[in-house]
């Protein structure tokens, strides 16, 4: 059995999950189990259906073409049935990615599609669409001394004062080969996230956070092109509240499962606990160093 601490949950897995950082000793009680077993082909007539998924009140069935069928149940269990010829390692990218994102939604957690880094005991999240450069920017920030917190799936919990906290995901950074070359991370490069794809696990260039950290601000990463001009700008409360819906990890799930968590998050914004900004930069690597310094300066300015 393999043991991991993923987004604050003790995970006990029959499969090795190469993207996750292993725990040496098993927890007394696992929050989540990952096992290999037969998965039904359908959830039956009552389920809602997407192109490759079915969903009912407690379960999500996810079909990953030519790789696996996954059943994610009650926020506690991920069952994996591999297609003939598929490997556990290839399927593990989806167990840790989409399936874990779904599972967190099932547990009512607020899940943002973004990376997070920390300094001086507080975190910022960088949200944006796939390919926007979230992980690359997070990696560059870590190189400038920030602590790595999460990549891609950013789970947020709330303390007793309703202040939002980012939970470290306990996973390695994932970067495309292009970013690895441009950021000079060749030595930290690990295995491919999925065989045949140019995306690799990368050991974070800084220490990894272990405990939940206060979420100071959320930056929405956007490409500089008309009408958006390069820079960091505040957005108004209405747009910020809408953003929390839109920047969720797979919003269709959020709408069905964790509307309470989102409402609490929106409340936290209204209380001024977390601010949302638009971070607008040109696509590509040319001005990445400038973006990093501008963001660090802006972050420092939030302290006042």
């Amino acid at each position, binding site marked *: 059995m393999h043991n991991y601490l993923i987004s604050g949950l003790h995970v006990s897995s029959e499969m090795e999950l190469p993207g996750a950082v292993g725990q040496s000793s098993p927890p007394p009680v696992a929050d989540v189990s990952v096992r290999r077993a037969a998965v039904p082909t359908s959830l039956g007539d009552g389920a809602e259906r997407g192109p490759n998924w079915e969903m009912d009140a407690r379960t999500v069935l996810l079909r990953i073409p030519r790789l696996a069928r996954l059943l994610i149940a009650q926020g506690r269990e991920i069952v994996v049935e591999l297609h003939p010829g598929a490997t556990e390692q290839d399927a593990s990218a989806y167990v840790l990615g989409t399936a874990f994102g779904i599972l967190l939604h099932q547990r009512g957690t607020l899940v943002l599609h973004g990376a997070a880094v920390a300094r001086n005991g507080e975190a910022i999240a960088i949200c944006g669409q796939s*390919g926007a450069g979230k992980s690359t920017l997070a990696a560059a920030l870590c190189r400038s001394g920030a602590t790595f917190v999460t990549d891609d799936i950013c789970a947020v919990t709330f303390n007793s004062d309703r202040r939002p906290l980012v939970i470290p995901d306990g996973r390695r950074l994932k970067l495309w*080969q292009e970013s690895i070359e441009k950021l000079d991370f060749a030595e930290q490069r690990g295995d491919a996230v999925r065989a045949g794809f*140019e995306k690799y696990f990368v050991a974070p260039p800084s220490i990894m956070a272990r405990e939940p950290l206060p979420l100071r601000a959320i930056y929405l990463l956007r490409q500089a092109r008309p009408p958006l001009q390069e820079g960091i700008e505040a957005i108004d409360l209405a747009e910020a509240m809408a953003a929390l819906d839109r920047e969720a990890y797979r919003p269709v799930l959020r709408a069905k499962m964790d509307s309470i968590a989102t409402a609490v998050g929106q409340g936290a914004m209204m209380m001024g606990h977390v601010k949302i900004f638009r971070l607008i930069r040109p696509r590509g690597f040319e001005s990445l160093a400038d973006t990093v310094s501008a963001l660090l300066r802006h972050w420092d300015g939030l302290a006042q």
Partner: protein
Amino acid sequence: MNAPGRIVWLASYPKSGNTWFRIFLANLAAGENGPTDINDLHERGGMAYNRTEFELATLLDSGLISHDDIDNLRPYVYRRLTPPIGQRWIKVHDAYMAAPSGEPIFGVPGTCAVYLVRDPRDVVVSFAFHNSMTVDDTIKLLNSTDSAFCRGGKGLEPQLRQLLLDWSGNVASWLDQTDIPVHCIRYEDLRAEPERHFAAALEFAGRIVSQADVQRAVRHSAFDELRRQEAERGFAERMSRTSPFFRSGRVGDWRGQLTDEQVACIEEAHAETMLRFGYALHTRPHVSSESLVKG
């Protein structure tokens, strides 16, 4: 009773008037509030190559499944994009093709297509400026059946892969398929009589619009207006650092831009399709007698 909603594919080879058509539709929607902002088009109907829409619908990480697996899922993603009523116009540059599963990617039941075709010699000139590519490399792109956008490499491409085929292949794939109804407009005709041809396309798609509304939307989409807006505020879809997106739009621009050898190279590859759409050949490429009869 309202007809059920449908997707209308706004299909074309690149640089054939697709953006102009989208701006016309945005101006139609804006009505008296136009001219619409050319940088506010993205929410209207969408693009078939949108990576985010794919991930929203499938929950999958689009960077970690193969292009072919994505193509197998695309018909089901598009089914979810079908509006309950009215038309949703979605831009497409892919050739009309079957996914590896055998299912046509764009053959979603109830859809139809408006296909824009433009003289490939003008397409080459416009495309070369747009991509900051040489004319010769652009001709290779138009002549290669293996052409694609965003085939990928070491990073995540901003769009899903799109197989274009060569220019003739792209045109024939949409106009010769029999799965869904298709309405063809030549860019040159649209330039010459925009009101007539925009109105005909809308009617084909099942949308009834008054002549006055079409006239106003055409006026608000005039090339000078687009050029003025781009000069003032830029255009989000511009690729080139040196050349504006709304550069010339002229019919027959190629005459001052291409060498005889370049024209011959295009005509040699596409004579049959060019003749089919009434684009008179400048050189005398070898064309089979059969295709001349068809033309």
